[in-house]
């Protein structure tokens, strides 16, 4: 922890995108607005969006600089886990932030993540929606019920020591993320759960900060109908492998 105070930290913010033309511009603006006096880079991993997301990213590079915004595109949709691994290969920071591009994760919380990490020396700081200062907006009763049920089930079966398992707004020490990403095989948001459960089992220091989650404003939500089945399968998988 000592060297982190003296040595300047650099944060690589990895944002996977697919058809997030407008959102990516907004999120980049908000990142630059809220991260002052911090060395960082934004790595956008675009999976060949047909809506021109990459064009917008190139325009943003003109505004903010090609050294601050890195476009690391892939030819087609290849999944979230590999998107992080892909972004990570190009990350030059000693810390990595992963966040969604759909504005449900607001960049204004980034300073809180960084502050928490410096205060505690944690290897992972994860955003939680399930505490008083945090919260969600735009969720139906059904979604709240599913979310609650899923959470109670996971807490009872896995004892993870973290209140929000499927949230994906997190800050990782780069070496820890590299190690975790290689041991995780799940897809979608079960991947997020696997990452944090494995990290907890490996004994990494995990801290939480409250975040709010506003359901996506632009574009359609990418949640599928079979998500409950996938979640239960993921839960069982983690029960037997971690």
């Amino acid at each position, binding site marked *: 922890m000592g060297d982190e105070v003296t040595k300047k930290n650099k944060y690589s913010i990895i944002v996977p995108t697919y058809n997030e033309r407008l959102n990516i511009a907004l999120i980049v603006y908000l990142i630059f607005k809220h991260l002052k006096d911090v060395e960082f880079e934004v790595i956008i991993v675009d999976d060949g969006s047909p809506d021109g997301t990459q064009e917008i990213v190139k325009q943003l590079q003109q505004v903010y600089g090609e050294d601050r915004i890195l476009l690391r595109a892939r030819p087609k949709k290849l999944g979230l886990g590999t998107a992080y691994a892909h972004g990570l290969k190009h990350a030059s920071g000693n810390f990595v932030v992963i966040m969604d591009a759909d504005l449900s994760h607001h960049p204004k919380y980034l300073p809180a993540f960084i502050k928490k990490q410096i205060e505690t020396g944690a290897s992972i700081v994860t955003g939680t929606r399930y505490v008083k200062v945090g919260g969600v907006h735009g969720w139906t009763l059904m979604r709240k019920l599913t979310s609650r049920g899923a959470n109670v089930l996971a807490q009872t079966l896995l004892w993870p020591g973290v209140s929000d398992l499927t949230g994906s707004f997190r800050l990782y020490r780069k070496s820890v993320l590299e190690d975790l990403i290689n041991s995780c095989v799940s897809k979608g948001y079960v991947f997020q759960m696997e990452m944090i459960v494995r990290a907890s089992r490996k004994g990494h220091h995990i801290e939480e900060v409250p975040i709010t989650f*506003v359901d996506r404003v632009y574009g359609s939500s990418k949640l599928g109908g079979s998500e409950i089945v996938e979640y239960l399968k993921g839960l069982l998988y983690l029960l037997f492998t971690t």
Partner: protein
Amino acid sequence: MKHIVKIISLLVAISALWIGLLQTSLISPDYPLMLPVYLVVSLGCYGLLMVGVGLMQFPTCPQESMLLQQDIIEAKTFLRQKGVDIGSN
């Protein structure tokens, strides 16, 4: 140790305790015989209670949605000035 092993160990320990209670017929055996049923029922009740309480106290943030809208307007104004092609509305 895999997590499933921990849970199975816990279950085995509880079963051992239960069998022990059945063997030491200090009290009427009818009572301990029903204990596992009570355990399962109370575990279910606990789960339902946690879901219920969690649902009632689900933290929401309607103000955040409004703040986000303001941020979006601000961002769009700035980006448009810089010549970023973000569309007309």
